């Protein structure tokens, strides 16, 4: 680890903490329908949209109506993406003449982008036309992000409203989240990325002559000399911005944010990391603002920052260690070498920014990568996995992170109530049996899907294990990571696993769907239940949710739930791999 690396990490979190307050206050104003500086432009657009779609923006919805609207909207956009993928050979903006996408892959991809996961079992630049990337995938980055935002706002309203039956209007929240938050930020970030060299065009791919022709062995075993290279390009910047801001993560290119056309400079790398965290960090402030308890928002944000710092420290430390298998090789950091593990990392980012990016992208449910997580040291690779296994609540996805964290808050308050023997209260609302039942449903579905599918995959020699490149504990990590990423709606991959098979396309598709909706529905049920409750005045027995003690309890509950649930699986995968590496075995 170096001082330079730590200074960059400190700078990054300082920027996030500085921006969180104005962004959070702005989002609160948007959803409370107060005046914002974008109103003169966006209010007429909003009114036009409601008139065209026949939506009454004043109509309020119960939690069940809200949830059904989420499902109906998601189903409609899923079908649209599936159809575009299957028919892309007949549609315009396909200069490379790609055929229609194979049905299992189209199924997996449509669910992936609908659920804000952006798991990619395909190589985008050799599979998807420009139209599919723009109309089928980039639009989903907006929609799925806005759906997450809408659901989080519904939860906040559930906390802040008194004896109400409704949580707001899904269509209004969806529209305002897209028009006021995601769209303006995306335009600004796209232009900033273009200034750094991210491409934005509709040209067919170029062919470049190699300075040094390469001899390669083809799939038929014959040795051939390659003299040219295809340069893939397209409308990248516009997709890149929302990929980060919507915590989607689906790359325009296969190598994602490691590709020089997606993330060309250290500055673009910093901008992309800021874009991932800015809305989830702002949401904690929005929570405080809309519930009338700004200190509670800061307490939640503090818990997120502490968990982020722990992950970043472990990952950066693990990646900076010399590889124990390289005997007699100087692996210390110096002016001429980065030191530590540079396999699978871009030289322009180095170890600090690769470790930071991996932590940020898995804390938030983004899934964009600027380095190969599969090439991380065992404990370094465990950090991204643990971040997702904690439930994507350390900042988390846009909206999804906050509502996931709030379920943990409900659980923490419940445990605190049990400890002092009083009915638990959260910001004046009594937490009762139904709320805890729904919170437990939310928390139990997650490991059930991840561990269930992983277990099934590892007992199928051909279908499950046949896709592995590495075996032993590293192979288990690859499968566990895939289902963790899918269920947590993260989308990053450990790579090394060929997921473009019928089994993995289908099972990961199902895992993504259940990981999104089967967790969001109990969360909305809690919101509906909280909205209908009276506010109980604070008393001496009320556990305050604005203090450092609350932050410590919240962090403890998150870690204990994650550790108890997933420690056995982790001990068989990255922890075992780490111990075997120390004794000289590699996989």
């Amino acid at each position, binding site marked *: 680890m170096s001082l330079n690396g730590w200074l960059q990490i400190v700078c990054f979190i300082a920027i996030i903490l500085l921006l969180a307050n104005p962004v959070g206050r702005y989002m609160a104003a948007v959803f409370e329908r107060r005046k914002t500086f974008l109103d003169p432009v966006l209010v007429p657009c909003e009114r036009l949209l409601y008139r065209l779609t026949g939506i009454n923006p004043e109509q309020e919805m119960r939690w*069940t109506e809200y949830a059904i609207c989420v499902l109906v909207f998601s189903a409609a956009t899923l079908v649209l993406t599936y159809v575009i993928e299957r028919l892309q050979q007949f549609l315009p903006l396909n200069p490379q003449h790609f055929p229609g996408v194979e049905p*299992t892959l189209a199924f997996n991809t449509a669910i992936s982008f609908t659920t804000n996961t952006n798991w990619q079992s395909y190589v985008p630049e050799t599979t998807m036309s420009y139209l599919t990337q723009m109309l089928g995938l980039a639009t989903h980055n907006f929609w799925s992000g806005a759906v997450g935002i809408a659901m989080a706002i519904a939860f906040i309203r559930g906390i802040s409203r008194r004896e109400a039956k409704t949580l707001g209007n899904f269509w209004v929240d969806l529209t305002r989240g897209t028009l006021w938050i995601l769209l303006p930020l995306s335009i600004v970030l796209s232009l900033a990325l273009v200034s750094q060299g991210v491409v934005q065009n509709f040209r067919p791919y170029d062919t470049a002559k190699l300075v040094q022709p390469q001899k390669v062995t083809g799939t038929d075993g014959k040795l051939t000399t390659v003299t040219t290279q295809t340069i893939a390009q397209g409308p990248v910047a516009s997709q890149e911005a929302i990929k980060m801001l919507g915590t989607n993560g689906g790359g325009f290119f296969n190598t994602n944010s490691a590709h020089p056309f997606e993330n060309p400079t250290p500055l673009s790398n910093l901008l992309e990391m800021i874009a991932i965290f800015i809305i989830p960090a702002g949401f904690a402030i929005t929570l405080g603002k809309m519930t009338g308890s700004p200190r509670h928002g800061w307490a939640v944000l503090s818990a997120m920052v502490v968990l982020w710092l722990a992950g970043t420290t472990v990952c950066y430390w693990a990646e900076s260690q010399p590889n124990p298998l390289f005997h007699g090789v100087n692996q210390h950091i110096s002016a001429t070498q980065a030191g530590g593990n540079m396999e699978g990392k871009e030289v322009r980012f180095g170890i600090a920014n690769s470790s930071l990016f991996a932590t940020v992208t898995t804390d938030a449910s983004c899934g964009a990568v600027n380095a190969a997580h599969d090439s991380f040291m065992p404990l370094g690779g465990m950090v991204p996995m643990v971040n997702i296994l904690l439930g994507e609540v350390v900042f988390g996805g846009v909206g999804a992170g906050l509502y996931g964290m709030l379920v943990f808050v409900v659980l923490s308050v419940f445990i605190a109530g049990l400890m002092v023997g009083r009915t638990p209260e959260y910001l004046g609302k009594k937490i009762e049996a139904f709320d805890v039942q*729904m919170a437990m449903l939310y928390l139990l579905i997650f490991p059930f899907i991840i561990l269930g599918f992983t277990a099934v995959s590892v007992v199928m020699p051909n279908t499950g294990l046949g896709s592995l490149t590495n075996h032993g504990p590293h192979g288990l990590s690859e499968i566990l990571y895939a289902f963790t990423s899918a269920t947590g709606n993260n989308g990053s991959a450990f790579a090394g696993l060929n997921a473009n098979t019928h089994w993995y396309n289908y099972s990961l598709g199902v895992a993504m769907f259940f990981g999104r909706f089967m967790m969001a529905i109990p969360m909305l049920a809690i919101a509906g239940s909280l909205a209908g409750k009276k506010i109980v005045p604070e008393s001496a027995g009320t556990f305050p949710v604005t203090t450092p003690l609350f932050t410590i309890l919240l962090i403890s509950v998150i870690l204990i739930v994650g550790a108890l649930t997933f420690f056995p699986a982790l001990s068989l995968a990255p922890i075992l791999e780490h111990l075997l590496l120390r004794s000289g075995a590699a996989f």
Partner: protein
Amino acid sequence: MSDLIATVSAVLMFLLAALYVHSCDRLKGER
């Protein structure tokens, strides 16, 4: 997997999710 299986799978999953909403609401109603 054909388009038919993909469609049937997606329809079943969304129906299951809708049923899940209904079940959670009934659980609340019973309390």
